[in-house]
């Protein structure tokens, strides 16, 4: 078999049936073998779209996403997508073509050192120089991508290796002596944690994306219901248990709810599960959870005591450890604490002025009418934060958003990947008029593949989050944020791609059009919602401030 055939067979062994990709010179042998292989290749319109689509596919399904691109510019166009997946721990395998081995290092046409470039943004990467190494490398790549703390793995494949011949032997098992993730939590640490939980007067769970990627939602819900401990979520943790749950306090951090942030400040025991204490959730590190002992459960030892020094670290898989904790769980006597939180919740709800078409209204409406399993992707900026605040995510893997890297242009291609992985679910991209233009070309991909992805543009004719910061912290000097003067007609744009486009300016129009949008099963639908230009995301903890120093309602 040739190297290209071996790759195809190896991918099949790993259960791959979809690849998001874009062809090119040195990828041709592989493309040729994929052509009638039975593996479906989704042709994107820009390689960045391929990486994000594979990411959305992976996040929404829990499977490894696969993307491919040719050497040079093809490979570098994947970089933003790979970095996005790395920051949010998504299992991804990226395959890139490379110039022939004898040309490597000669600055050949479309040559770039992609393993060098992606070294700090992949969990691991490989340059295969011998056809005999392909099967072991593919096996390792998939194993590394999905085990432990998941992440992207890149395989760089020179064109001559794709053409070289070798016998196909696929290993059933692999053993990497230097890579042994810890899944079981240390029993003594679990015991210590449990003792601290029983003694706590004001315990609080802080839940991140690790709970979702480990599939620990049920264990978390059991733990919450048995003990009665309230929960705050990081952006990535939303949906791990239902946002409707009485003990769910929504997101904490920079744009968190007042009651979530107050709870963190007053808590005497923070039980952090699968999160990494990003600066967007901690605010000023020195004053983060000043009264709390911290238990930190995470599969990645390097996340522990990186930003916040913790008292009881437990390294291991969230699902494993939570099920151990559930075994001993009992109702805690914390009525006074719960009452305090409920009072905050009542006194400081998320609010906005209800005049005109408001983004918060749009998200609330969607949250109210969509089924629990609808998948919501977002772009980055105000659209993302309003979605996190006002949408009640009820199931894991229903929010797909670039949390760590904050990649504008992520949401739409990710929605394409999510729709392909979940053909029967409603998939929506909540976008801004800035973000959507970063990967708008993927409309062609969605139309061609008959993907009924819904794009809701919260159109404020500017780069809203940047505008908000300029308004609050840069004396209203609005540098480089105005999109108004050259805003495309998004309805015509949709039409040009043979997608469906609507524009709405009022709540009435929005309410009227939405049922029709949700019913569409064949074509992508874009709804251009002209919202109030000056609307801001509140509450807001300014960068570097403590969580209880929130700004409110300066809109």
């Amino acid at each position, binding site marked *: 078999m040739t190297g290209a055939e071996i790759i195809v067979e190896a991918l099949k062994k790993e259960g791959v049936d979809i690849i998001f990709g874009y062809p090119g010179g040195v990828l041709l042998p592989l493309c040729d073998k994929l052509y009638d292989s039975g593996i479906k290749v989704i042709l994107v319109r820009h390689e960045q779209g391929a990486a994000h689509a594979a990411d959305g596919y992976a996040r929404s399904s829990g499977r490894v996403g696969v993307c491919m691109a040719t050497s040079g510019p093809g490979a570098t166009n994947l970089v933003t997508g790979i970095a996005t997946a790395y920051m949010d721990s998504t299992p991804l395998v990226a395959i890139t073509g490379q110039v022939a081995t004898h040309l490597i290092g000669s600055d050949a046409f479309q040559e770039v050192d992609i*393993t060098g470039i992606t070294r700090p943004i992949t969990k691991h990467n490989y340059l295969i120089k011998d056809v005999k190494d392909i099967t072991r490398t593919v096996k390792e790549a998939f194993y590394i991508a999905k085990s432990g703390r998941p992440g992207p793995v890149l395989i760089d494949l020179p064109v001559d290796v794709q053409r070289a011949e070798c016998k196909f032997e696929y290993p059933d098992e692999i053993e*990497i002596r230097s890579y042994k993730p810890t899944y079981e939590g240390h029993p003594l640490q679990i015991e210590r944690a449990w003792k601290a939980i029983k003694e706590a007067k004001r315990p609080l769970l802080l839940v991140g994306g690790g709970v979702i990627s480990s599939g620990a939602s049920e264990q978390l819900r059991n733990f919450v219901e048995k003990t009665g401990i309230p929960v705050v979520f990081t952006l990535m943790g939303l949906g791990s248990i239902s946002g409707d749950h009485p003990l769910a306090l929504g997101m904490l951090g920079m744009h968190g709810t007042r009651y979530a942030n107050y709870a963190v400040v007053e808590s005497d025991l923070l039980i952090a599960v699968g999160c990494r204490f990003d600066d967007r959730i901690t605010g000023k590190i020195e004053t983060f959870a000043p009264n709390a002992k911290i238990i930190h459960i995470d599969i*990645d*030892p390097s996340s522990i*005591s990186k930003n916040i020094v913790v008292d009881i670290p437990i390294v291991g898989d969230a699902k494993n450890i939570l099920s151990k904790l559930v075994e001993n769980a009992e109702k805690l006597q914390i009525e006074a604490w719960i009452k305090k939180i409920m009072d905050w919740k009542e006194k400081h709800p998320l609010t906005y002025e209800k005049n005109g078409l408001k983004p918060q209204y749009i998200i609330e409406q969607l949250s109210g009418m969509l089924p629990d399993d609808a998948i919501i992707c977002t772009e980055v900026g105000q659209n993302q934060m309003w979605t996190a605040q006002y949408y009640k995510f009820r199931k894991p893997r229903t929010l797909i958003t670039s949390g760590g890297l904050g990649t504008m242009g992520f949401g739409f291609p990710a929605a394409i990947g999510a729709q392909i992985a979940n053909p029967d679910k409603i998939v929506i991209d909540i976008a801004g008029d800035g973000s959507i233009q970063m990967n708008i070309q993927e409309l062609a991909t969605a139309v061609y593949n008959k993907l009924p992805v819904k794009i809701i543009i919260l159109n404020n004719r500017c780069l809203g989050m940047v505008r908000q910061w300029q308004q609050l912290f840069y004396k209203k000097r609005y540098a480089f944020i105005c999109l108004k003067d050259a805003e495309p007609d998004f309805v015509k744009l949709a039409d040009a791609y043979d997608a469906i486009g609507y524009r709405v300016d009022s709540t009435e129009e929005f309410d009227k059009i939405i049922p029709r949008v949700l019913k569409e099963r064949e074509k992508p639908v874009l709804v251009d919602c002209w919202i109030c230009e000056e609307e801001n995301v509140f509450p807001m903890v300014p960068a570097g401030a403590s969580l209880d120093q929130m700004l409110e309602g300066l809109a």
Partner: protein
Amino acid sequence: MAENNEKGQRAHTIVIAVENKSGVLARIAGLFSARGYNIDSLCVSETEDPSISKMTLTVKGDERILEQIYKQLNKLIDVIKVFDLTEGDFIDRELALVKVKTLNAAARQDIMQIASIFRAKVVDISRQSLTLEVAGKTSKVNAMIEMLKSYGIKEMIKTGKIAMAREFNQKK
């Protein structure tokens, strides 16, 4: 970063066992630069097992930085094991080649005497210079270099430290 030792920072000697593959050194070096840790010295070579290389690094930092370095190194797929030798009993050696000016016979005599005190070897000689090879603990190597400075050092190169835990009295 690590300019001084006053804030709980101290020098640590770390030995890393890694897969002997191309690109591994770049991964380690990249990790240090990306996360802003300073490497004071670095020495790499093959071991008794040709599939494993060992790197000896000296780095400065407080306990938290060291803990992060240790964890981040372990996270790299090609890193097999990381040993922080500083906590236990270990042997460390460094080798230096020092080319010193010899302006006259008296200077040459002096330098040869210094060499013999430090058990350094004369490995090259010319009318104007002597080249010494000295091996030992970093402090000894540095002491000899310090002694030679007044004669004028023309050129100097050091290997960086290599280290190994002692078989007995290991705290671990």
